[in-house]
């Protein structure tokens, strides 16, 4: 079976001349559909760059990127946007919800760009909010929600369009331990119940306990790739 994500010799350099920074120096990586992967590494290791490339938010300088068997490394900005729209979901450290916009409208947003009808949009956004346990907070704006609740809304927004991959960039970075645990359990649940592939960036070692595969990035290269099978409640 072809892996869902397949990278071969992927590099990314920023800047020109003397100021050139090699963020990634040749990454080979396969991620199967349904996997739950944690990307680890100190800051400046290139893990965020890798995440941006995997999430098609940016284009690599060189190398191959096959998404579901198709080369996507040289897509235009608009084509990458369409790929994100139809196959990818994002959760960020800073929640990144639209301010002064109700939870329901935030969750609806990806469906709006898909051109879905208003009624269907509402229905699916409500279902997504219910699935993260915020069905009764649909009318609340981000300012009226706690951090954990905001992150739940963000997760609902990421999965409402039924993506193939959910990218989570430090999803618990702004949350306390108890809330972090809830959010991680929610993500694990989405992975196990809906089969959504999860790629999560984190630098907190305890969060990797939730992932069955931990990839370590160091100086723009893969330093380690461990599979952990014995952990309870992990994905």
């Amino acid at each position, binding site marked *: 079976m072809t892996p869902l994500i397949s990278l071969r010799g992927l590099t990314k350099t920023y800047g020109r001349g003397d100021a050139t920074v090699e963020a990634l120096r040749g990454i080979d990586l396969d991620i199967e559909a349904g996997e739950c992967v944690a990307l680890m590494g100190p800051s400046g290791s290139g893990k965020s760059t890798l995440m*941006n490339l995997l*999430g098609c*938010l*940016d284009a690599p300088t060189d190398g191959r990127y096959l998404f579901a068997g198709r080369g996507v490394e040289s897509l235009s*900005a*608009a084509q990458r*946007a*369409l790929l*994100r*729209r*139809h196959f*990818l979901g*994002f959760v*960020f450290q800073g929640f*990144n*919800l*639209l*301010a*002064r*916009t109700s939870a329901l*409208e935030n969750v609806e*947003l*990806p469906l*709006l*760009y*898909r*051109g879905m009808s208003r009624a269907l949009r509402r229905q699916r956004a409500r279902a997504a909010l219910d699935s993260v346990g915020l069905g009764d907070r649909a009318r609340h704006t981000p300012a009226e929600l706690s951090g954990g609740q905001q992150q739940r809304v963000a997760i609902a*927004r990421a999965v409402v369009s039924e993506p193939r991959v959910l990218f989570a960039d430090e999803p618990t970075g702004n949350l306390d331990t108890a809330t972090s645990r809830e959010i991680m359990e929610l993500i694990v649940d989405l992975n196990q119940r809906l089969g959504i592939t999860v790629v999560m960036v984190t630098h907190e070692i305890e969060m990797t306990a939730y992932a069955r595969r931990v990839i370590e990035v160091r100086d723009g290269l893969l330093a380690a790739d461990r599979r952990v099978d014995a952990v309870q409640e992990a994905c």
Partner: protein
Amino acid sequence: MVWNAFGIALREIRRNLVRAALTVLGVVIGVAAVVVMVTLGDGATASVTDQVKSLGSNLIVARPGRGLGPGSTSSAPGFEAADAAAIVDAVPEASAAVPVRNLSVTAVYLQENWSTQAVGSTVDYFEVAGWSLASGRFFTEAEARAARPVCVLGSSLAATLFGQLEPLGAEVRLKTLSCRVVGVLETKGQGAMGNDQDDVVVLPLTTLERRLAGRVGRRDISTLMISARDGVSTDRVVQSVAVVLRERRGIAANEDDDFSVIDTEQIAATLGATTRILTMLLGAVAAVSLLVGGIGIMNIMLVSVTERTREIGIRMAIGALPREVRWQFMVESVVLSVVGGLVGIALALVGSIALADLMGIPFRFGTRINLIAFAFSAAVGVLFGFMPARRAARLDPIEALRHE
């Protein structure tokens, strides 16, 4: 996609109504200013031409010097009283012709004194100039021939001097001449230049020349008023009168006229042109404020792109195409300016009705200027929304998401 952008843009506008209102304020004021200026100007033009036309379609006026209005010269000699008689004799289409001489005088009655215009003319003057009587009578042929000190007062002069008292039979002093009031004229109202036509005292030309002007010049008549017979083309009368006057003034065939003969149609057109130029100037000044309003929209939209960088990043990460982001900002800008235009037009409607009433100008709804102002406000939205929208669409999603 445009439809989608509409929904998103409207939602964003609703989300920040105060900012939206402040953004469009400039366009509202600009559009309102342009429409009010032009509407009032059109009303003023219409009122001027209406008043001139109310003089009657068969009135023809001859004045010394070339042209009327700006640039006219008055160095040419005036007419003689005999010119009027000559015109009636030579031009069969002219039913009457009267010489008119104006003089500024101070009219005194008891303690009241008032600076006014004395008009010296012949008996036919009242009919040619379209005056009717409120009380008393006009002066007679015999009184005119004998240069009797009699006069007919305009209604506002009568009101000023006499108030509630009876003017008929009273003696009014004009300069050193004591003059008996024989009649009071019906009110005519405001003149074409905004002057009070009823602030006037009419007396026989003979009386004015011999007993008031203090000097009997041969060529002191400033105006000849000629009345064309009904159903006669005034153009032909104008030409015939010009021929008579050229001959009497001894103008050689190769020389230009040193006088002008025009009918009411032309007077209306000339005066109308003057007010139209003023209207255009005022409209142009107002258009500048509309432009400033448009720049205000661009300013806020540019600030808003910076302020909403994160929002743009979120939308792009979720899968919004760059052109969808561009459309969103474009539509926001156009919707704002179009709404501003509509509010401005509504405001202008109320404002110009009120101002027209206050200034005594008729209110004329100008479809054209309203459409132009509206189209202009929409164009402002497109023009000044373009740059912010392009900037928003060119943002890099990663950079935008990192933006604080």
